């Protein structure tokens, strides 16, 4: 089909036509590649080059040999794999039912539930850790109650299983978001045909709905796997050091140690993450998920009877209560006086909010501005790249895609050092300020590290869109640009939105790169403010107050985004009564 299409217009660009691409597409790929070279590859290489350098200064792979000869690191490697795989399982158990219920049944305020489903991604640094310990820790609320009533404790927060538990609570929204986007793209005609042929209930779900939504599920699951494999915050929170990310972090950030092993571990983590992403592509290879009919957006919605409604609502509420418990903890922390070895704070106050009142404004403004821009950059680059990868055969497009994906495994500190090293001596015209410490560099750091989220979401969305829709439009005389703006982008809205929301929400609480690149307090985002407070006992309440403010700011932005999407979807959707 596509070969015919390209044969139709050989005169325009004979060279590019061979790759089924227009000059604009080739240019777009080059622009994305340039962005990645400038802000990812060059800075990264300048830092991790020590991993390949022997003590004499020459090229060497000896450190990689050391990695595999070190039993602690081998153990860490298997632990990381185990935790990442198990987290995918647990996160799926939370996300798949939630996504299915939300896609299938009519709910008042679905946008609100979707928003609450995203919130777990927004875990403010330090504050989130303290709150988790106060709720689920050895002497947290739940264990103190259990111990008083029944005389036993549940080790939620201990060892590898603890890491799996916390990671699943934290990252299940990746699956929820991407799966929901996929589900909303399924044509209800498919489902109706199956129903006409007699498929019901579980058969319908397992033979029709789930397979058609597979791109979204696989995208979300792959992200969870990769993110958890590379995640640092949770193992540190639980003090589990026998995993790769904390081992790399401890090596890299330990003062005065010039050990290259930290960078070696980073390189290995990047390799594993790419391997996992490629595996997820293999799972989907050779299958076609695209449907041409665009009769209706999403599954046919049903209204539930009062009984079913109650069951669904209870299920949703219980899930949200569990997944939002850390945030309830942060909220209590922010209005509590002292909370120590007790089920709840001793007394309540609004003093902490008064304390942060004056500085909160600029912090929130900066956070929304930086993370909004970063999310936007990610969506634009992610969609462009996904389009070029799936719709053209331009050489090097897969490589660019993999480079973009590798950002998921790069520690924030490493990218931060690389950006400083590369751009500090580049001065801006007029002000003479260094390019590396201008606030926009933070936006770039956030955008680069979150690009994999948006890219994955955009790819999944495009996979469900059949190329013949675009070809039909072109045959009817539409130019490339109007095909993009009238057909492709509107039909990808759900996926692009999922990408934006994940990038935006996770960037809002990024700490490591922030701490390195912020040069002036007035330019600082909210994560910096939280860090500053959380260095002292007296700062715990104000820090938590800022954490709550960050969560609310992200929640409002996300809610608005979903509201817009819901309206779009409402226009497309057919309802069955």
């Amino acid at each position: 089909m596509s070969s015919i299409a390209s044969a139709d217009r050989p005169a325009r660009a004979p060279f590019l036509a061979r790759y089924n691409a227009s000059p604009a597409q080739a240019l777009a790929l080059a622009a994305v590649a340039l962005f990645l070279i400038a802000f990812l590859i060059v800075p990264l290489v300048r830092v991790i080059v020590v991993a390949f350098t022997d003590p004499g200064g020459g090229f060497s792979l000896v450190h990689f040999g050391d990695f595999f000869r070190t039993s602690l690191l081998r153990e860490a490697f298997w632990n990381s794999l185990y935790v990442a795989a198990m987290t995918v399982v647990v996160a799926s158990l939370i996300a798949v039912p939630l996504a299915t219920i939300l896609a299938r049944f009519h709910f008042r305020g679905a946008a609100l539930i979707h928003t609450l489903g995203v919130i777990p991604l927004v875990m403010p640094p330090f504050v989130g850790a303290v709150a988790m310990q106060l709720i689920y820790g050895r002497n947290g609320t739940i264990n103190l109650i259990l111990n008083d009533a029944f005389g036993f404790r549940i080790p939620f927060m201990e060892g590898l299983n603890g890491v799996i538990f916390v990671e699943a609570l934290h990252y299940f929204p990746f699956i929820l978001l991407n799966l929901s986007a996929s589900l909303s793209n399924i044509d209800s005609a498919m489902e109706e045909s199956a129903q006409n042929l007699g498929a019901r209930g579980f058969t319908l779900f397992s033979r029709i709905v789930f397979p058609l939504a597979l791109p979204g599920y696989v995208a979300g699951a792959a992200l969870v796997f990769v993110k958890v494999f590379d995640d640092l915050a949770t193992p540190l929170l639980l003090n589990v050091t026998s995993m790769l990310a904390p081992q790399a972090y401890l090596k890299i950030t330990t003062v005065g140690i010039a050990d290259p092993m930290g960078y070696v571990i980073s390189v290995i983590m990047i390799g594993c993450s790419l391997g996992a992403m490629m595996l997820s592509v293999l799972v989907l290879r050779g299958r076609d998920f695209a449907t041409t009919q665009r009769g209706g957006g999403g599954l046919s919605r049903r209204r539930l009877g009062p009984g079913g409604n109650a069951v669904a609502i209870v299920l949703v509420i219980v899930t949200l209560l569990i997944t939002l418990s850390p945030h309830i903890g942060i909220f209590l922390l922010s209005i509590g006086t002292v909370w120590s070895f007790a089920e709840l704070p001793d007394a309540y106050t609004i003093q902490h909010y008064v304390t942060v009142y004056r500085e909160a404004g600029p912090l929130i403004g900066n956070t929304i501005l930086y993370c909004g821009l970063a999310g936007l950059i990610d969506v634009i680059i992610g969609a462009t790249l996904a389009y070029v990868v799936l719709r053209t055969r331009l050489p090097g497009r897969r490589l660019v895609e993999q480079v973009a994906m590798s950002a998921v495994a790069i520690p924030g500190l490493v990218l931060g050092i690389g950006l400083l090293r590369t751009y500090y001596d580049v001065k801006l015209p007029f002000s003479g300020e260094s390019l590396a410490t201008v606030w926009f560099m933070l936006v770039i750091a956030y955008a680069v590290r979150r690009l994999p989220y948006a890219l994955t979401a955009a790819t999944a969305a495009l996979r469900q869109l059949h190329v013949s829709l675009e070809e039909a439009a072109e045959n009817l005389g539409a130019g490339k640009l109007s095909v993009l703006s009238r057909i492709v982008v509107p039909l990808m809205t759900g996926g692009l939105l999922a990408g934006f929301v994940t990038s935006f929400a996770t960037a809002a609480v990024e700490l490591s790169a922030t701490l390195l690149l912020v040069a002036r307090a007035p330019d600082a985002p909210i994560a910096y403010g939280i860090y500053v407070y959380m260095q002292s006992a007296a700062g715990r309440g104000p820090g938590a107050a800022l954490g709550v403010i960050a969560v609310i700011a992200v929640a409002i932005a996300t809610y608005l985004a979903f509201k817009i999407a819901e309206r779009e979807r409402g226009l497309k959707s057919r309802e069955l009564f």
Partner: protein
Amino acid sequence: MAQKLTRRLLLAAACTLSATSVFAQSIGDKVIIVTSFSKDLTTPFSVAFEKKYPGTKVEVQNRNSAAAIAFIRETRSSPPDIFWASAPDAFEVLKKNSLLQKYQPKAQGLTDKVGTYPVNDPAGYYVGFAASGYGIMYNTRYMRANSLPAPKEWDDLKKPIYFGHVGFSAPSRSGTSHLTVETILQGEGWDKGWATLIEIGGNFQQVSDRSFGVPDAVNSGQYGIGIVIDFFGLSAKASGFPVEFVYPTVTAIVPANVGIIANAKNQKAAEAFVEFLLSEEGQQILLDPKIQRLPVRQSTYAKAPAGYPNPITDKSLGAKVSFNADVSEGRYELVNSLFDRVITFRLKELNAAWKAIHDTEKRLGTGANAEAKRLLAEARKLASSVPITAKEASDPAIAGSFQEVKKDAKPAGRQAEFEERWDSFAVKNYAEAKALAEKAAGAK
């Protein structure tokens, strides 16, 4: 006469005017400070400094030690002015990379040693502006709920009753924590010092990756007892947390430092800030209940509230150990790595070994026979020894494997090789110790 007076007055006024304008001009319009201190400490100082020098703004950049070092290193073409932090190790790294400049403070009346620990860098690249003592912090609610007695001395922390209740921050992650470890090693000697540390380590619930992680966990009641710097305990108590803090009779003293960064843009203001920290008014700010650090100016203690610790007159604070800074520096990275191999990264195994030893000792009581006693002694030895001797630790070839490679140095191996050896040593010893202790329990 009247004319003369007027003229004199005018002259005087002119003098004052020009003096103030020269003054304001001479120190510059801002000073940029990179610090790992909390707001509680930095705000009172910057407010007081700005009040004293109107027209000069203090710009504080909060970064943790790792980010601070990386930032100062990468921005050396146009760096900030001052690095202000506790961690002596961070200052050493900056000094070695020629990122600090020498500055001899003009302030007088300062002590140059707190306990036996030299306050200032002998080479003059940074100065101590305050000191702190290490001690034990505990959560009173936690202790009551678990019916634990309050610990007083370091040796108390070895007791079986505190199993799983103690926390510490890794010396590789906290310069002050490193000084405590080094003080114990120098005070008790290499082998005995490590035996003490590892035996206390057997009781650890957690080895935290940042200094503030320990008081944070004790404040929440996640575990009961933390080995911390005094102001962490004292300021938490002042903020209303149910915690207490005690100094053991022998304690380690750690300084808090300030240094001017090489090629500082605002040199005059930077010098003025250092002088301000050491001045009478600056030192007095340290007595603020939210700060609670020990001044280095003798006369400031006269204004301290009753009961405020005074390391200059109270000889028990850090006095018993004569601290050898050269020994400490030579094996700095090695000690950190060794601690992580035998305690931090093998905590689970270490806990299991000591649990078995404690259980067996409790079960046998005084009725243990000779064979059981022999097995237990063997187990204790295995669960408290380190794979290298003091001499090896100070051997430049071995210690050099843990440092940045110097041109003509010949390291004895790569860091990864040593670490793998030590790791297997610890794993094997702790497993054997556990097995021996269990065998002893059956030997009754």
